[in-house]
């Protein structure tokens, strides 16, 4: 058998309803490779509530609880509690939600579960808008993006507010492990999931998933675009373990314009808008590096508390 760069095991069946070139489908396939069959998912309203297929068919080959929009984290807590009372220990409990379900409507339940230290892996697959309902703005939509609810028009009313940071919110909860990831880096994503699975308590991974219909990009460019997001530091790749940051630095930083110009959702941006975004990304990147430096230097013995 060929030596493969990732686990050979497939727990996602073909025939699912994802769009051609869907980043979120790659994310699911990779996650199920990383976590294996002893995994239970809680999936709220999101693309992945629809993509598994229509009843009685399901492309996900592990148990899935489909649940209401704002309940991914609380559902995962409930699954974990039931497994605990039934004495079942070796099962990964995963909340699998989109960026709206995580950072907008679901953030209360997420905050609750993380504060309670519930032993769950929360994966936010981030396609940066409400894609399943047809591309409406979420708090995770990046600044500059067109969506159907930030349409631009004569007022230039594309999204003017920067993206909310899921990982920083989780770090503020003193979560044992939080990380960003991107489907363009499968080995990295698989490693982070497996690391998350090895840690007790709440874990949060936000994986960037390019969305061809929502980002107005070519399906074949999904991986290329994800790579540019990382290389331009528009989507910095980093992990935070017990408060200590580890940032993956691109060999050579690319200008954000290279990333933005591959996507129709940014096509309206003028030169000065791109400059403004570049400046913002630069500032965020510098801040992140400072956090890394500071946390590495001041490594707390154990920031998890008693």
């Amino acid at each position: 058998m060929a030596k493969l760069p990732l686990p050979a095991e497939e727990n996602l069946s073909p025939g699912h309803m994802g769009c051609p070139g869907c980043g979120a489908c790659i994310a699911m396939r990779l996650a199920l490779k990383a976590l294996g069959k002893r995994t239970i998912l809680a999936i709220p309203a999101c693309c992945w509530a629809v993509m598994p297929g229509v009843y009685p068919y399901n492309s996900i080959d592990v148990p899935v609880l489909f649940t209401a929009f704002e309940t991914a984290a609380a559902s995962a807590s409930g699954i974990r509690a039931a497994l605990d009372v039934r004495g079942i220990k070796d099962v990964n409990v995963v909340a699998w939600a989109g960026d709206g379900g995580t950072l907008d409507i679901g953030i209360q339940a997420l905050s609750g579960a993380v504060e309670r230290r519930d032993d769950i892996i929360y994966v936010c697959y981030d396609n940066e808008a409400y894609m399943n309902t047809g591309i409406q703005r979420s708090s995770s939509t990046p600044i500059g993006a067109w969506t159907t609810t930030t349409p631009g028009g004569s007022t230039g009313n594309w999204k003017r507010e920067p993206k909310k940071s899921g990982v920083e919110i989780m770090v503020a909860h003193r979560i044992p492990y939080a990380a960003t990831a991107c489907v363009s880096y499968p080995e990295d994503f698989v490693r982070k999931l497996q690391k998350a699975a090895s840690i007790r308590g709440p874990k949060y991974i936000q994986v960037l998933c390019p969305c061809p219909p929502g980002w107005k990009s070519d399906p074949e460019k999904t991986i290329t675009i994800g790579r540019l997001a990382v290389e331009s530091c528009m989507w910095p790749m980093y992990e935070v373990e017990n408060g200590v940051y580890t940032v993956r630095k691109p060999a050579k930083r690319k200008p954000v314009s290279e990333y933005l110009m591959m996507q129709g959702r940014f096509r309206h941006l003028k030169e000065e808008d791109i400059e403004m975004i570049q400046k913002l990304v630069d500032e965020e990147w510098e801040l992140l590096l400072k956090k890394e430096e500071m946390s590495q230097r001041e490594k707390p013995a154990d920031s998890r508390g008693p």
Partner: protein
Amino acid sequence: MVKKLINGNYAASYASKLARAQVIAAYPITPQTNVVELIADFVASGEMKAKYICVESEHSAMAACIAASATGARTFTATSSQGLLLMHELLHWASGARLPIVMVNVNRAVGPPWSVWADQTDSISQRDTGWMQFYSESTQELLDTVIMLYKVAESPDILLPGFVTEDAFYLSHTYEPVDIPEQAMVDSFLPPFDPPFKLDVDRPHGLGSLSMPHQWYMEMRYNIAEAMDLSRRRILEVEREWRELTGRSYGGLLDEYGTDGADAIIACAGTAASTAREVVDDMRKVGKRVGLARIRCLRPFPTEELRALGRRVPVIGVMDRCYTFGDGGPLFTEIKSALYQLRDRPLVKNFVAGVGGRDITMKTIEKMFENLLRIGSSGLDREKEWVDLKRPEVV
């Protein structure tokens, strides 16, 4: 059997312990708080082998119960008023997923203005969620009904969630002597939770995915309707079993008192029934033939029982401790609807009373009976009446 002096809330806690609930996810709200405080104590002391999830909202409480129930654990939660309303979305989810979750709701008014006192608007608003609904009259009934409800809800042909209510303060905080059944007896009555499907890595299934209009959504809803209809018989069977074990029963779906040969009866739900019982006794003593029909179970609705009653009784007053704006008291409209198919229908009048915890006194109920007896000979005066309302004409 041990007799303890406890309030309604503690009766709910004891019931969840006796039923061996395995996952409790709850959020505090007045006047429910001591239900979950006592459970937290039971879990902390190891008296109850369960996981207690301190969720950050009622919405998450129900979400966690749904997930835990789907993973094969017996679940319990308790709430009240605004908390129940916040759960509303997920009440539909629980029944749609066919999960036999059991809950206690303390019937409390909804704001604004803020009111923490007795009113049934909260639970009545959940009529269409596919939950069985029981209204208790006493602390003992609350404890017994929670245990019975698990058995009904978990029946393989039912698999629906249900809740038991208690009126705020009248039951929640009032101490009564309660028989706490022996654990072994409850164990013999209620077997461990063994659902036909659960989230299980060895037998992976999805629960609650998408269904298109031409596929199976409508058939799944029909199956819920069928299960809810079947639950009527099951409730009676389970109550009969409970009576054999404990000697206690509560009248099935419709608890009748003094209805034989009655010229007028009052129908109501909750603790006001206790007051009405006293009035019935007093009035019967002076030769006035009045009676009481307590709606113990609102879902499933005691349609047949009410029809049988409607064939015998010429005048029915329906006392609602809440109101459906733009229509009438909810029990009133439901009872009228049940009676419509009768050839000779009784007169039905609506009394709206005790809204927001206002006291429903014996005097108030006696006046209602007098009014009903009058109506019996002179005809309906008016269809709906808000009783003890501060009206300009009586100030």
